[in-house]
């Protein structure tokens, strides 16, 4: 059992982030595509606990944004607290698809944009939460695909050896000889450009997953190569166990340590890949939000100059990456200190002596 505070803490925080993203429909105040055309690029709003006269309010409230935009120059807003609205927890709203529960809601004329709005007046907080579904889960699914491929290829190469091993490892070398963004671009280049959001999401997962299999497959191969000479594997073979049985029962479980650490190392890379591709317009497109295509509006200089809250999707990546890095660090440390029972330093799980 892994007992390490840092490890559990980072795993727990990551789980929290993912729950927030999965529950976007509940946590987000608005639909991600809902436009408030009267308030484009509204800044994040203040939550008031006391009014202008200094009187404390039991229920915090938000004020409306009134546009003061000139003909030229950036959007400007002032708060109009004569049109305020109290914040309420756990509200039920009516929408086209029936009634929904939301964590926050207002009951007045004012709308709440805690993280500001974008060029169409869409709520950034809602888009951030829904975008996390795309970005974080593209990372997770692509990693699963990479690792699955890596396990398959590495397992075959390591176990059967000879020309299969050579062929697969030369293939992996070709994949690793390319810088990763170039590789990503190369694979992306030959796939359809304009697709529905669902297709382009799975396309993206496929592209990212296909580019990441080389490194895990080499590591898996290494583990299998040294594990297949171990006594209990020879014994199993001696008793007439089939290849499939030996691989499944004895060899692949040995790779669980490598797989776990590789997963934690790969996930942030895959998330970054999704963000990069979507940022450059090669990933998931409008109106679906992802952290990458939300950042894309910063490619216009006037947005970059005037609206700092458009950086928020990028800033959201930092804690996610830090947590994954911390998790990877503590996992690596854990597996480094765990030696296999015959003394060879395998990056594998410690297994009790197999009794056959």
């Amino acid at each position, binding site marked *: 059992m892994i007992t390490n505070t840092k490890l559990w803490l980072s795993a727990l925080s990551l789980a929290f982030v993912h729950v927030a993203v999965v529950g976007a429909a509940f946590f987000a105040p608005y639909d991600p595509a809902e436009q408030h055309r009267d308030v484009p690029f509204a800044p994040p709003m203040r939550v008031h606990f006391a009014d202008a006269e200094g009187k404390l309010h039991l229920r915090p409230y938000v004020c409306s944004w009134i546009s003061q935009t000139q003909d030229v120059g950036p959007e400007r807003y002032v708060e109009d607290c004569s049109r305020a609205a109290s914040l309420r927890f756990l509200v039920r709203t009516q929408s086209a698809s029936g009634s929904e529960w939301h964590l926050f809601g207002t009951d007045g004329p004012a709308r709440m944009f805690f993280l500001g709005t974008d060029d169409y007046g869409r709520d950034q907080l809602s888009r951030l939460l829904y975008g996390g579904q795309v970005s974080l889960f593209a990372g997770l699914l692509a990693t699963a695909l990479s690792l699955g491929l890596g396990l398959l290829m590495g397992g075959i190469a390591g176990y059967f050896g000879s020309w299969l091993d050579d062929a697969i490892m*030369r*293939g992996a*070398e*070709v994949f690793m*000889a*390319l*810088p*990763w*963004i*170039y*590789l990503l*671009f*190369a*694979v*992306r*280049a*030959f*796939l*359809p*450009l304009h697709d529905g959001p669902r297709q382009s999401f799975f396309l993206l997962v496929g592209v990212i997953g296909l580019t990441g299999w080389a490194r895990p497959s080499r590591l898996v191969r290494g583990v299998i190569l040294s594990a297949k000479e171990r006594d209990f594997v020879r014994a199993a073979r001696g008793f007439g166990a089939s290849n499939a049985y030996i691989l499944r029962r004895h060899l692949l479980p040995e790779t669980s340590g490598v797989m776990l650490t590789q997963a934690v190392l790969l996930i942030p890379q895959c998330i*970054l890949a999704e*963000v*990069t591709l979507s*940022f*450059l*317009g*090669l990933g998931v497109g409008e109106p679906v939000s992802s952290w990458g295509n939300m*950042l894309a509006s*910063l*490619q216009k*200089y006037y947005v*970059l*100059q005037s609206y*700092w809250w458009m*950086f928020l999707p*990028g*800033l959201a*990546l*930092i*804690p996610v*990456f*830090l947590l994954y*890095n911390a998790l990877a660090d503590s996992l690596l440390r854990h597996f480094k200190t765990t030696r296999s029972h015959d003394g060879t330093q395998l990056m594998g799980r410690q297994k009790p002596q197999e009794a056959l």
Partner: protein
Amino acid sequence: MMRFLANRLARTAFTLLGVSVLAFILIDLAPGEYFQDMRLNPQISRETVAALRVEYGLDQALPLKYARWLRSVSRGELGYSFAYNCPVWPLLETRIANTLILTITALVCSWLIAIPLGVWMASRAGRWEDRVSGLGNTFLLGTPDILIALGLLAFALRVTWLPTGGMHAPLADGNLNDLALHLILPVLALVAGMLPILVRHVRSAMLDVLRAPFIAAARGHGVPRGRLLFGHALPAAANPLISLFGLSVGVLLSGSLLIEVVMGWPGVGPLLLQAILERDPHIVVAAVLFSTLFLTSGSVLADIFLYVADPRIRVES
């Protein structure tokens, strides 16, 4: 040494061939091509499009297309761009030069900063200086390149004296001061992305060496601190770092593609992105081959350095 180099060269050629074959298979499998959009245009007749396809050899079978491309490579043209209607190499030539200017500057800068910083952190291991810079390092490692580049651009827009994109001011082609000024932002962005990885490795390699008995002995003999760290410890810690050099080329090349697009640097990146959006396959293949070649030369260079630096490797081979 010569045999080793020849071996590496053969392997590189094999890899390039593999990449190009793979790319051509992918192109063939891919739906859509350059002339697809033309078919939607009512002013262009079906026959014209068909004639164009024949002219550019798009109607041929895959092996024929590949053979045609190989012949064009042997003439030094690297294929033909449909969008620009000219051979690929003249298009790519200046772009590659620009990318190399950016990448190599960033490579030199990041190593020049990383080595002293990493050595210093290792020599202060466990103290507050090491902790603070380690924390900064971790944060920089967790910050995506896109965000760093966009942040730097926003900063440049605010201070106004820094150029916010491109490679030259208008009418200032070939002015080195101007080029240096334009290099600042993209190089800063690249270095900020590369530095935390390098510093981490330099620090941990140095830490391993500093624990060795010969360092204690040297310290006991009164070797001054600077010479102890850079004269005795650093050469002993060099091997893993030299291998890292090859890897860092790839990371920087990837980073530079993104930063070129964000900061408008006229390198391979923007051309490649545009070629993907326009379905101009030969440019994509050529750009990808260039990146492979550059990355492999980085690792060959690292191997040569290793050969020069480590007598054990020289004796073995």
